[in-house]
């Protein structure tokens, strides 16, 4: 199937690019799988952050450094830290038993971290995205801003209203209300 050319910059044709891509893809999938199978929410969040790091590197590899930066700042940074913060605040540990220190727990995290670190170093040294033809798809923050607030201005408006009503709804549903005694209308 001749589908590859229609997807800009998906396949970096040089060897290192492919190797790094498959390494990162495997690491992302592993981290995500580990994330959804952990019983401890904190561990799950750590693995999800890992997946986001690897995903950001994949974006960088494809020649989209801006998206890579956002993936780090917004997803791995802001959102996941918020998750972690809420989980710790609510003390959502499974069964409430104290966490034992088990060295074997560290093995998958260490392997994933090593892969991520190794790929980062490789990307810094080699930088396959600058060598390839991916430069045409580089979007500067200015280009992105223009597209977002000019061409997609209406979409941004719709999203902002969505977020407003989501916030209102979350506040309304989450706000506790003293139950009336005796009756529970359905």
């Amino acid at each position: 199937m001749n589908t590859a050319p229609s997807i800009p910059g998906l396949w970096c044709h040089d060897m290192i690019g492919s190797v790094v891509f498959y390494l990162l893809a495997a690491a992302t999938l592993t981290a995500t799988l580990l994330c959804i199978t952990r019983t401890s929410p904190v561990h799950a969040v750590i693995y999800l952050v890992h997946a986001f790091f690897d995903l950001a590197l994949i974006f960088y590899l494809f020649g989209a450094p801006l998206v890579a930066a956002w993936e780090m700042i917004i997803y791995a940074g802001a959102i996941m830290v918020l998750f972690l913060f809420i989980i710790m605040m609510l003390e959502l540990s499974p069964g409430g038993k104290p966490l034992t220190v088990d060295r074997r727990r560290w093995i998958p995290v260490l392997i994933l971290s090593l892969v991520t670190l190794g790929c980062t170093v490789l990307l810094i040294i080699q930088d396959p995205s600058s060598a390839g033809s991916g430069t045409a798809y580089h979007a500067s923050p200015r280009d992105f801003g223009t597209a977002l607030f000019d061409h997609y201005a209406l979409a941004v408006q719709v999203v902002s209203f969505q977020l407003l009503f989501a916030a209102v709804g979350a506040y309304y549903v989450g706000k506790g209300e003293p139950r009336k005694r005796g009756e529970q209308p359905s």
Partner: protein
Amino acid sequence: MTWLDVLALAPVLVLVIGATTLLMAGAWYHETRPLIAGGIAVALVAAVTAGVAPPSPMEIAGLFSSAPFARYFAILWSLVAALILMLSLRYASEREFAAGEYVALVLFSAAGMALLSGATSLVGLFLSLESFTLALYILVSFHRNNNQGAEAGLKYLVLGAVATGFMAFGIALIYAASGTFHLPEALNGLQVGGHLRPWGLLGWGLALVAIGFKISLVPFHLWTPDVYQGAPAPVTALLATGSKGAVGAALVMVLASAPGAWQELVPLLWVLALLTMLVGSLCALPQENLKRLLAYSSVVHMGYLLTALLPGSPEGYSAVVFYLTVYTAASLGAFAVITSLSNAHGEPQKLAAWHGLGYRYPVRGAVLATCLLSLAGMPLTGGFIGKFVLFHAAIKGGFTGLAVVAILASLVSFAYYLRVVMVLYSSDEPAPALHPGTSLEHAVLLVCVSAILLLGLYPAPLLDLIATLIP
């Protein structure tokens, strides 16, 4: 955004600005009645605006159309929002709903539905779909002292979020394969030499999962009865009419925008339609809860719609639009009866509670019977004409087998609808006293019944109008 765009968006702007204004007002002012009255006024103004404002020939920001087709649905969903707010007045004050938030969410979901019915781009489709689903997640669990409502809201939220993921992934794949979000180009771009490319097929498949979830086609329908049962009755009415109708309208927009670009999906849609009608009918038969019965009936109705969409003919599309209108009136009427009979202690949902209610409350008994018979497709009601044009379009388009199944499914549907009517008019002992209903609720019932009867007796003007709207 130019001045023309603003004018083209006017109905939606009225709804959204009205929603935010009432939301702000509700923060300081807690009276239910004036806030809901304001909401009704906003929805009616939006309907009038949609009828009066000149439709712009251009697309708005390349995302939404304001063609007569979109305007027709903007009017319809605004009216539905107005009727639902009329129904909610007593219901909301008895349950101490926060009126500002409630009204704002209903109006915002109507705005999302109006936008979705005119989406011309995959981005517009996704955003507008999420707008009203998001409002509905909250509305479903709006009754905070009701555990069933909370359960329904959670189920809808979790399954809906998964469906959203499928939608986003499907759209991403379609974009990756075609390089554009704009509908005709995106769908035609999936074709190579008269065949769908694998990426396109995968993208379509994922998007169909999400669409199937939203309009509850059969393998994805499991949430429907639970959510219908747990949600407050006026919200269920919105869920059954606007939420499904808007997705149906969007499907017409999508399929009509690229004729011939989805021929390879026909067998898939064929199977979905068949399963939806069969499973929906069989599940509706043993139901003892009126809201669950109506949920399964809505599943079957979506199967009928799909049957008429399959030929991809203008006749099929106009049949779908007409049927959506009639179905909206009948379904809204049925839920309006449930709402008007409910009191502070709950809604009469179990069929056992309906014995003899047709004698005790003759007006509402008759309205419910009319709505159910219209849903079944009884002659003289709008449902009959609707089904007639649907099945006619399907047979003419060469889908005779599916049309026969649809006709059989409607015959079966008489069994479960008539069972409710029989329960209404069969009792040895006097029916329990329920709420007598307010005049506003009776007005809603009057609107629904007159729409059903008018469209059943004199459908020609609307059919002619709809034939001119099809994109």
